[in-house]
């Protein structure tokens, strides 16, 4: 009897030890995130001022800023969003609503799963060979934006599919019963009801794209840009110009990388400050995505 009690006690002890180990292992990631924040803020906050956002890069760390970087990031994101969102959502809708179970769709599906696992720098090499040299887009905003669009396409397709899959079949059947065509069902029911999931996927995809450095370096973005691209707005008719698409550019993570790799201490401060801006941008996007997911999940109950 005593023996059994002892064994039970030992087992329970191990169980509790593991409980604590498990909790600690789960928290390691959080501790790292927290330390990273604190470290970045301590290093970088002194440099954060209006001037930092409004200045071009410079040889003198105190005068250098991220103007060309954040303008570049915004324009590249415009291209990425314009290319990846329609393509990704359309592909997701096709695979869930239209695609029949045959070898073509199963190849597409396996292919998307595989693309999601391809390292980002490979997309950069693809963009370098294809957009820069074959299509002659040059080392431009267009090339960079398209490279990132290819990168986040699988994410958007998968998010769209998951969101659509959650819609019960009864909704589709009700729509068909009223004589709606397939496209009318998709347009009036499937897309609105899956909007929350699709938006979440899009925002998370774009937040990945903002932080991506490797593919943009590969397509040859410059690290020192002391001018802005041609403005998209003109004073003459038709008031909108697309010349900026072909301008050289830099983006936030590349500006940060450039500063990190310089030996002077002043540039390390700049790197930390750029890191704070970058981190806040991605975290805000992720927070918005989580909020949307939460809100839509609450609103719709099947």
């Amino acid at each position, binding site marked *: 009897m005593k023996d059994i009690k002892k064994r039970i006690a030992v087992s329970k002890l191990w169980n509790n030890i593991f409980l604590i*180990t498990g909790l600690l292992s789960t928290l390691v*990631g959080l501790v790292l995130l927290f330390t*990273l924040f604190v470290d970045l803020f301590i290093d970088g906050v002194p440099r954060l001022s209006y001037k930092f956002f409004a200045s071009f890069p410079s040889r003198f760390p105190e005068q250098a800023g991220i103007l060309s970087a954040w303008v570049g990031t915004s324009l590249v994101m415009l291209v990425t969003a314009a290319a990846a969102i329609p393509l990704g959502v359309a*592909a997701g809708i*096709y695979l869930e609503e*239209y695609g029949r179970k045959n070898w073509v769709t199963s190849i597409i599906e396996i292919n998307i799963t595989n693309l999601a696992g391809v*390292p980002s720098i490979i997309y950069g090499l693809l963009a370098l060979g294809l957009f820069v040299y074959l299509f002659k887009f040059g080392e431009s905003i267009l090339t960079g934006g398209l490279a990132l669009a290819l990168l986040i396409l699988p994410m958007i397709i998968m998010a769209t599919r998951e969101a659509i899959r959650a819609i019960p079949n009864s909704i589709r059947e009700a729509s068909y019963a009223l004589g709606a065509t397939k496209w009318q069902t998709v347009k009036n029911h499937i897309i609105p009801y899956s909007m929350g999931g699709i938006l979440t996927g899009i925002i998370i995809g774009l937040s990945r794209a903002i932080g991506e450095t*490797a593919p943009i370096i590969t397509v040859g973005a410059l690290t020192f840009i002391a001018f802005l691209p041609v403005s998209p707005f003109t004073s003459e008719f038709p008031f909108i110009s697309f010349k900026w698409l072909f301008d050289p550019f830099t983006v936030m993570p590349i500006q940060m990388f450039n500063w990190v790799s310089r030996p002077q201490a002043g540039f390390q401060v700049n790197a930390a400050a750029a890191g704070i801006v970058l981190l806040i941008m991605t975290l805000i996007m*992720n927070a918005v995505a989580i909020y949307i997911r939460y809100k839509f999940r609450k609103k719709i109950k099947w």
Partner: protein
Amino acid sequence: MKTKTSKKIKEFLIEAVLFLSALSSVLITIGIVVILSYESFGFFKEVPIKEFLTGTQWTPLFAEPKFGILPLVAGTLLTTFIALLVSLPLGLVAAIYLSEYAPHKFREIIKPVLELLAAVPTVVYGYFALSFLTPILQKIVPDLSGFNALSPGIIMGIMIIPYVSSVSEDSMKAVPMHIREGSYAMGATKFQTAFKVLIPAAFSGIAAAFIIGVSRAVGETMVVAIAAGMMPNFTANPMEPVQTLTSYIVQVSLGDVPHGTIEYKTIFAAGIVLFLMTLFFNIIGFWLRKKIRQAY
């Protein structure tokens, strides 16, 4: 009547557009394969494959270039190995904790927060490894060089915990409740059930998580490019600077390499090695995950 045909045409056109969008993802894969093979074909015309695969020196930018890929592969495997030493135990234990022990509410809060680890831009992690972790490690290991494989390896490991833990957790969740209940009925604790019943039952899922982690670490670029140094080094010593396949591509792309030169082609040769390595791991991972779905 006319409206009916025009409606039909419209439906057909829409379906065609949607189909082409879906097909575009296949074109991306074809594009990757064609571009990588085309440019590396040019490379292998000038460098014999045997020298490429067995050479232990990688100095394509020197006056007398040597094209042995092994130092870059060694660097890649070394950093990946360190990352796995960190992420596998932590990710697995965290997954068991989240799937078996954690209260529902805690899990709902902690999971999205853990996902944030994957959202932080990797260039920020690189800065952190170089300016925060390396100096700390240098205090513990005095002869650690300023650029080394250890520090980016550890950071990469923590970075991929969410990937490892979420796939493992899913596969443990997929183990039916009655198997756990059988174990509890025999008087086993949660700990004993987890290690003697759940891990064997969910083994293929855990292996898939492991493989996905490997694939992530092999393809990771900025952390190693910043903190591991840019020195091709045929070594297994984590204290020394190394260069990975990915950071070599970054190094060459930062310089102004003219299109069509041998230096330009080297990045595609390194790229195809990287692509094949990750493809290999992805296929195994895909196959393992398919096995979980069939198991129960």
